[in-house]
Every structure is written in structure tokens, then in C-alpha cells.
């Protein structure tokens, strides 16, 4: 068991990728301070890690946290205090990276949801990476801070929001699929209430990460291919 003392995100991320590239499975134990208050211990899988962020999937509760050390980033939901890694030859978890063609966001997200549902196991979590662009008809611009506050409540994962002209752009990296869907429905309700007509909602460069245990690799591949989607990569140890 590794103990990443000092809870350095950079060290934890680099160690994680080093371990998985050496073909071992990593189960992370995390003690973290939640941004809204309180302390939490959780055991789970690392979905995505950079030198500043770790997207963490809590297996027992089925929830997702974005861990980071930057309090000012609204997307960060927890600050790690201690991170430990338990390594195993194979703990049964796999990561699948699925490419979803560009198009209207509603159909792209429903395709992502169908792909997620096609993996029949209770131990799974689905995430999205890519760009969603809401293009609306109006002369009024909408403050990005307002949209951010809406997104913080719904999305677990890395996201950034930019507003410019008549567009709201949501940049996602390993953001919870259900959270993104919830956010888009909240956003369209808000725009409709304010009398702002949406021209189109695009989804560009979307890829889906499915973390799962309990279904064979070949079964997942055939389920995804039956939907007409391409698997960009499989991480057999994660």
C-alpha cells in the first residue's frame, strides 16, 4: 500500500499513471475536506488525474468528487488530506473510452446515456469530455458567474464555462454524465424563463469514459459497437 503523504495532487496523479502503465490496478483511499464543510473518507477509483485535479469515483456511495488544492476553482468539491493507494494485480475494474460523433447536444447526450446504460452492472460510472456550446438568440449577454453557480450544483468533474457574444461554452473533462444532463436541462429552463430563445445546442469532440466492474471486456465492446459507436481505448488496469 502506498501512502501519498502531504496529499500532493501532482504526486498522486503521477504515481497513479506510473502504476497503471506498469499494469497494476489501483484502489485509492482518500481522506478529504469537502468544500461545503465536513470531512469524508472514501474508497474508490481515479477516473482522471492531472497535476492539479483528480476526478475520484467513490465506489461504495456511487458518487464523484473533483479533488484539487485550489479553493477558488468553483468546480473543486473536495481538498484531499491524505491519499493512499492499494495496488492489486487486477481488481476487475476497467475503463472504456468511447468516441461519440459531433452533433446536436440532446442526441449526443442521449447516445452517451444509452452507451452507459448498455453496460449492465451496478458498479459503474460514466463521464464526459468535450465541448457543449449553447447558442442563443438575444442581444443580452449572460454572466458566466451565474452559469458557473448553476453548474457547480449539478456537475461533478472538471469544467469551465465561458460566455461570449450569444454563446455559452461548457468545456468538460471527466464530468459526470448525469450531472451534465441535469445542468443542460436547468440551463435551458433558466433561458426559457428569461425569454431567451435557444438557437442550437452543439456537442463537439465528445468522448465518454465508462468505469465499470462486473462485465467482461468483450461484452462491453459488443454492447457499444451494437450502438454504432467506436471504442477509442480500453484501460484494462485502472
Amino acid at each position, binding site marked *: 500500500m502506498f501512502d501519498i503523504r502531504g496529499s500532493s*495532487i*501532482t504526486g498522486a*496523479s*503521477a504515481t497513479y*499513471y506510473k502504476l*497503471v*502503465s506498469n499494469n497494476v490496478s489501483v484502489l485509492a483511499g482518500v481522506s478529504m475536506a469537502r468544500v461545503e464543510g465536513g470531512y469524508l473518507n472514501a474508497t474508490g477509483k481515479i*477516473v*482522471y*488525474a*492531472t*497535476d*492539479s*485535479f483528480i476526478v475520484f469515483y467513490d465506489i461504495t456511495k456511487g458518487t464523484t468528487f473533483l479533488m484539487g488544492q485550489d479553493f477558488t476553482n468553483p468546480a473543486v468539491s473536495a481538498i484531499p488530506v491524505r491519499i493512499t493507494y492499494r495496488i492489486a494485480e487486477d481488481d476487475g475494474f476497467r*475503463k472504456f*473510452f468511447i468516441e461519440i460523433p459531433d452533433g446536436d447536444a440532446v442526441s449526443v447526450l442521449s447516445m452517451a446515456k444509452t452507451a452507459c446504460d448498455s453496460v449492465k452492472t451496478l458498479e459503474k460510472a460514466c*463521464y464526459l*469530455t468535450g*465541448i457543449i*456550446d449553447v*447558442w442563443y*438568440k*438575444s*442581444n443580452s449577454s449572460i454572466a458566466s458567474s451565474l452559469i458557473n453557480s448553476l453548474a457547480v450544483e449539478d456537475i461533478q468533474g472538471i469544467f469551465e464555462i*465561458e460566455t*461570449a*457574444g*450569444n*454563446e455559452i*461554452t461548457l*468545456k468538460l*473533462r*471527466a464530468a459526470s454524465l448525469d450531472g451534465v444532463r441535469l445542468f443542460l436541462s436547468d440551463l435551458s429552463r433558466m433561458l426559457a424563463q428569461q425569454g431567451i430563445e435557444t438557437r*442550437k445546442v*452543439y456537442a*463537439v*469532440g465528445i*468522448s465518454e*469514459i465508462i468505469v465499470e466492474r462486473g462485465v467482461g471486456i468483450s461484452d462491453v465492446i459488443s454492447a457499444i459497437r451494437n450502438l454504432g459507436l467506436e471504442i*477509442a*481505448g480500453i*484501460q484494462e488496469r485502472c
Partner: protein
Amino acid sequence: MLILRNLILDILVIALLIFSFYYFLSLRGLHAYEGSMADGLSAAYIANYYRARGSSFLAYVHGVSNEGMPMDVVGRVIDSTRSTIVIYSGNRTFSIYSDGQKVKEPFFKDINSFYIQMRSVRELRNVLVKINPISGNLYDLEAICNNINSVVRHSGLEAELITLNFYLFNSDLMNKIRSGDVPIQLILYKINTAGMGRASLVTSVLNPYYLSIQDMPLQRIRDLDGILGPWMGEDAFISEIEVRIVLNKIPTQEQISYIIRAIEAIPGVRFAKIVPEFW
């Protein structure tokens, strides 16, 4: 005996001096810089310093892609901004920087780096071609670039890579952007995330002026046309065009003079020159 000992010492000192001098020269001759770092900011700082002094860079990057897959990329550093290096590998460009670095770019990054290794090379095999402004479309620009590529091939060499920098102005597109009839943010992200170089809109607070496209691989010009085409009027004004070619081998003096003479004879070409690094 004393004379003999002094003589041996003298010989040893001279041999040591010659060896040190040779070692220093060989190091200087091969690489002005060789080292590793973690983030794009340090890499950009080093690349900017040495590229401005005529060194090119080869780089190896270990990091994680936006999609979450661990990635290793080996390629040529084709550009560096204040905090990012741009690497060309496999017909696409990768913008590289880390989430944690203090200074970031408005462009979408392709790889979040954990480890970057860079080595400078100093070879005279980069061809810089400047093209006169074009009133037409991206296919006209592609045609000129294809002619340039034919000249390179005819000289007995191959282009390891060809990238383009240019400004694109189309009044229809700009008017549509001004009136909110084009999802320009989306268009810029599409270009920036598809490995087609870096796109930005040069603008004032109220008026968009023109699109700036940097480090676009020539093979991706039709992809760019596919993205911009539906929103543009017929003819665009394409200016500040720079074609950057890295040859697969160091050219001989005859090949250099042929390449320059033949490229400069192509209609629309302002000048061509061989440079140690594009800067």
C-alpha cells in the same frame, strides 16, 4: 628525472585541455540544450530562449490526454508561445501545458503534461516561404502550397512537415459574427481541439476583425474549409501567409539554390529562404 616528470605532467595537462576543448565543442555542436521539465511554462521558456537563437527542438511528452488516456508523444516543436509548446506529430499538432502552471493560454490544450524532455538541434533545413495576400479561398492557398511541395520533391528531398500561418478576413463571416449569427466560440474550439493548429479571432470589444490561424498542418486545410465554409461568403482575403517547411534531410548548396529559385518563381510567392528555426 625531474625534467622527465615535468614533461609527463605537461603532456597530461595538454591532453586534458585538448580533451576538454573537444568535449565542449562536441556538446555545443550537437545540442545547445538537453533536459527535462514538468510543465509547459518551463518548456515554453526554454524553447522561446533557444528558438530565438536559431535552435530547433525535438520533444518527448508524457502526460494525459483530455479524454483521460495516458499519452506519450514524440515530435518536433513547431511553435512556442509564452506558456505553451506546440508539437507536430502524426499530421496533427498538440498544444501542451499543465493544469497547475501559473500562466495558461486561451487555446484548448491537448495534453496535460507530467514530463517533457526536450533536445535542441541546429540544422539548416527549414524553408520559410512568404506568400502574397490571396483574394480567393483556402483551396487557392492549398494550390500554391502544393506547388511549393512539388518543388521540394523535385529537388530530391521530402517535406517532413508543412505548416501554415495566416490571417483570414471575410466580410460576410465578420458581419454574421457581429450580429450573433455564427457560433464563433464553437468554431474556434472545433479548430483548436482537432489538432488543426491554433485559431483565434482578432477583435476589438465590439468588432471582430479577422481570424488568425497558426501552425496549421497543410493536410488539414480542407478540414478547416469544412468548418468555416458553411458560414463564409464567396471570397476571403487571406494575408500574412507563411508556409513553414521542415525538410527530411539537410539540403546541399545546389539543392538550396534550386529550392529558393524554383519556389520564388511560383506565382504569388513573395520570397523563400532557408532558416535555422522559424521565429
